[in-house]
């Protein structure tokens, strides 16, 4: 076989490579999520391997494709534009949460998320964790889905399905994150700003935890941990 035949440029198209990157990162998250409860004590550190590998692929992929932090969504110039796009879906979802919580006989408790933590600190923590999730979901996966399938409903649906699927087998959380995934992926494709998405992620998690009965959310547990 000649050297030209071994060149990735000639054997893998750009769309296929983007799809491969997407599947590769999702598989790492699935491995970490589902394997976490099978190990205990210090052995849990082994789960860092797929997470580090996923971050390595994401970072090196950005470099290989010449994507800047600004391209990815770490920017402030379109923050307000992204927030404007998010406000209505957030209001709608908030009202829906209140109705669902009320219909299911739950009580509203704004301090239920982590009762022993100061709520502002918890919201900041939620922002940080939301930023990590939104970076992986939108800053990387959405961008690769867009490269593979083009911008529009197909790539938005793929991202929502991935986000919902990563919250299996928790049925309530899967439905909620699928819906959130559609909104966030669509907003990111119009105004790529990860800070706005992280704010939305944190506030919506707070609203969901405060209104939906805890028995339905099953302590936000996902993967094998759901059964423990």
């Amino acid at each position: 076989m000649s050297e030209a035949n071994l060149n990735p440029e000639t054997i893998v198209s750009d769309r296929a490579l983007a799809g491969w990157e997407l599947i590769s990162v999702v598989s790492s998250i699935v491995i970490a999520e589902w394997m976490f409860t099978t190990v205990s004590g210090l052995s849990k550190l082994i789960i860092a391997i797929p997470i580090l590998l996923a971050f390595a692929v994401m970072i090196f992929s950005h470099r290989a494709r010449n994507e800047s932090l600004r391209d990815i969504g770490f920017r402030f110039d379109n923050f307000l534009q992204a927030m404007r796009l998010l406000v209505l879906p957030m209001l709608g979802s908030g009202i829906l949460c209140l109705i669902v919580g009320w219909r299911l006989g739950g009580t509203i408790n704004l301090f239920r998320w982590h009762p022993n933590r100061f709520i502002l600190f918890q919201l900041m923590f939620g922002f940080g964790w939301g930023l990590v999730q939104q970076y992986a979901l939108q800053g990387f996966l959405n961008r690769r889905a867009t490269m593979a399938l083009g911008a529009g409903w197909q790539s938005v649906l793929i991202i929502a399905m991935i986000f919902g699927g990563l919250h299996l087998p928790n049925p309530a959380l899967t439905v909620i994150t699928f819906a959130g995934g559609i909104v966030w992926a669509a907003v990111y494709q119009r105004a790529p700003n990860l800070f706005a998405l992280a704010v939305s992620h944190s506030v919506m998690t707070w609203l969901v935890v405060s209104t939906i009965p805890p028995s339905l959310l099953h302590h936000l547990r996902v993967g094998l941990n759901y059964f423990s």
Partner: protein
Amino acid sequence: MKPSKETKVFFSRQNLFQLLIAKSIIEALLVTALAVSFYLVVTNPHLRGWLDQADARTISGWVVNEKSAGTRVEVQLFIDDRFVESRVADSFRPDVQQAQRATDEWHGFVFQTPRLGAGDHEARVFAIHRGASDERRTLQIIGKPLRFHVDAALTDSRGPATSAGETQ
């Protein structure tokens, strides 16, 4: 000489291609290693035993941990899939030692059958495996489940029946 555009690229598409292949191999090995180690942690392939007999009065058998034949194994009785009782298998069973399954004669278990309703019932006995971690314990079935029948006459003579789980 000015560096070419090619050399400015920190990480090329070809490197990314190679990284993806390496990552796939590492993760496949990791998942395999985790699956094997999980199996070894939650199961004990050295447990040997048998559920010999089950009727309306007693349920008995024996169990030995061949890796540590001097220790006693804890067993749990379930009737009709309901937990009934837990005990240590330390009853006298000389035949187990004679068959060279254990180094001593104290690996039997005998449960008193609780009051049951008339009809057919199924007994299962499980050995408890604690593994290396305190976080989880697993149950391994001993022998095969045994079905037995309780006569209405026996039920009448022992008083009203309760469900197996409520006898404790």
